[in-house]
């Protein structure tokens, strides 16, 4: 045990705590709480019912009211702990609330109605999950549709990105043709043109091509990423030309060389680009917000924003759908975190 703690709290040389060791651990533990805390708080909140969400101060964990079927009533009644004037407590079921008083009943003696001041009663609760927060929006509020739209956009955009970018990267890394430098220059140049700078004309182009309110209007403008072409080209430059020549001697057509030789060998770079593309497209917000104005075409991000922007925000649904939106990214994070971080450190892309 002491070995373990010795290892974990390895310090700047020798024994004793140097001030930098303290700063390090305060920073790391504080950072961990700050980075994960908000997301955990979101998950916890998303499992609370609307009534509990309106409470202050909020509880850390989600609870549900305990209910019990009582003779003579159709629905199960919520249970409360009531403090009597003499200080004793008993468990009663509430029938209805009238002003500051609640009409209650003893579950064991359902005939007698008891009036209790609401200040004297505490709801009886247990840890429980309001799963309805998740079921309702997916079933009745179009979120299943939004989810499908997001999945469609992400999948198609990623596939097209991988195909077109790798083809272009292949041509730019393995062929010597007139105008290659010019093409490279154009691609470098467009790195300087983020989408936010060409919103208006891009909207008009998308509108002219009839892609407004279509998911393809979201997909196509994003797929020709210069970053992807760059990343893949850099990688393909490391594939020896002799391999391609061997394939040419082997009767392979240029397309086969691309498909059967270069693509499989560029798999590591393709994987990095695929992961990034999935995260980018899943998270896209501004452009879908502009192109998609009909509810049935919304992606999750746009749908969330729309529901969160309503006058009467239904937080219990919003929070649950935020968690749903977060899930794929969390999965990517858990399984591919190492892969991504080395990819960023290596290529400096985001």
């Amino acid at each position: 045990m002491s070995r373990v703690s010795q290892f974990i709290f390895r310090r700047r040389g020798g024994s004793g705590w140097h001030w930098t060791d303290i700063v390090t651990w305060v920073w790391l533990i504080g950072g961990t709480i700050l980075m994960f805390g908000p997301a955990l708080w979101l998950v916890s909140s998303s499992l609370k019912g609307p009534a509990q969400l309106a409470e202050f101060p909020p509880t850390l964990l989600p609870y549900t009211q305990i209910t019990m079927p009582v003779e003579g009533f159709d629905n199960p009644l919520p249970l409360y702990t009531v403090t009597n004037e003499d200080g004793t407590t008993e468990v009663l079921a509430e029938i209805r609330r009238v002003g500051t008083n609640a009409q209650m009943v003893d579950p064991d003696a359902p005939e007698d109605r008891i009036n209790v001041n609401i200040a004297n009663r505490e709801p009886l609760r247990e840890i429980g999950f309001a799963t309805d927060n998740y079921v309702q929006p997916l079933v009745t509020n179009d979120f299943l549709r939004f989810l499908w739209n997001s999945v469609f956009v992400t999948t198609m955009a990623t596939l097209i990105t991988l195909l077109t970018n790798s083809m272009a990267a292949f041509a730019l890394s393995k062929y010597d043709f007139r105008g290659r430098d010019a093409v490279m220059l154009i691609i470098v140049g467009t790195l300087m043109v983020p989408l936010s700078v060409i919103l208006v004309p891009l909207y008009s182009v998308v509108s002219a091509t009839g892609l407004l309110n279509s998911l393809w209007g979201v997909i196509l403008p994003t797929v020709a990423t210069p970053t992807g072409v760059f990343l893949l080209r850099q990688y393909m430059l490391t594939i020896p030309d002799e391999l391609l020549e061997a394939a040419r001697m082997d009767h392979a057509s240029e397309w086969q060389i691309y498909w059967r030789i270069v693509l499989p060998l560029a798999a590591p770079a393709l994987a990095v680009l695929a992961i990034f593309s999935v995260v980018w497209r899943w998270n896209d917000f501004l452009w879908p917000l502009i192109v998609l104005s009909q509810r049935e075409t919304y992606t999750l991000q746009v749908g969330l924003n729309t529901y969160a922007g309503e006058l009467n925000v239904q937080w219990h649904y919003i929070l649950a759908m935020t968690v749903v939106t977060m899930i794929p990214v969390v999965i990517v994070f858990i399984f591919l975190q190492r892969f991504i971080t080395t990819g960023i450190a290596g290529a400096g892309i985001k």
Partner: protein
Amino acid sequence: MAAISKSLGTVVTVPLAWLARIIDYPLRWWQIRTGQGGMAAVFLFPNLAIFGVFVIVPLVLNFLYSTTSGTDIFLPDRTFVGLDQYQRLLSCDDYTRRITCREDQFWTAAGNTLAFVIFQVATMVAVSLITALILNRNIAGRGFFRAVFFFPVLLSPVVVGLIWRWILQRQGLLNLIMVNLGMEPEVWLNDRAYAFTATIGVSVWAHMGFYTLILLAGLQAIPKDLYEAADMDGTPPARVFWRITLPLLGPNLAVVLVLALIKGVQIFDEVYVLTGGGPGTSTLYLTQYIYEVGFASILRNPGLAAAASILMGLVLVVLTLIQLWLSGRKEKAGKR
């Protein structure tokens, strides 16, 4: 599990392989007719076509839009007004007072963006540098902590905005903490100063992991023997930091600075969800201004939005050129 993923792989790859084989026939014919040059064109075409239609054409059109007025999006229906939109954006009766400007919203957004960028980038660089330095120490669980700080980077801006909107609301987590510490709860996002601070804090929270990674990579590229040599000379730690670490990290630090500036100028998504630009216009930044003028408001004015976006684009072009120059220099330094 393995069987499932394998059969899934077959479902995807077999049709793809067939498709590739079918495509091969016309392409072989084309290759025989045009040779390698023709094939280069084939491989470039899809990407360049999409590029041309959705990047190059809009880039050119942007200038045309910025010289026209009207609410129509169809260009021929719009009236040519020369540089009027730019004049409208930039003219003020009294340049010391924002209210007197014809398009005072633009000046507000520009001013807010400038303030945001200054504070956000400064905080971002400081926090990322400290985190990178700490992660570069010989600590247990370094991989885990690196992942911890990277986690928010992957979250969508909408999710980030909603998470923090939920935390900062009246019955939120922050107020719970305030109450427990014996302080008064606040409605944070209804206060101009708090809201502005929140946009900075939230964007730093969301993106610092990315910059930390770049700086960490830079730190790990510094040869260990330099530190050992300094240690042999008995150099005090502070001096090691100022005379070895910082100068050698310089290029990475510069790249981080400029990248953060480029991203900061374009800030939109998370702020839009968090505050919607409010309260009032206290967190209205440039991209939101362009979005609202161009698309969202009833009195929309695409020409004005285009002009504003070109002005913003100029700033970004300058910043990107600096970045390309810096990373080119970094590469050269690396080769040496």
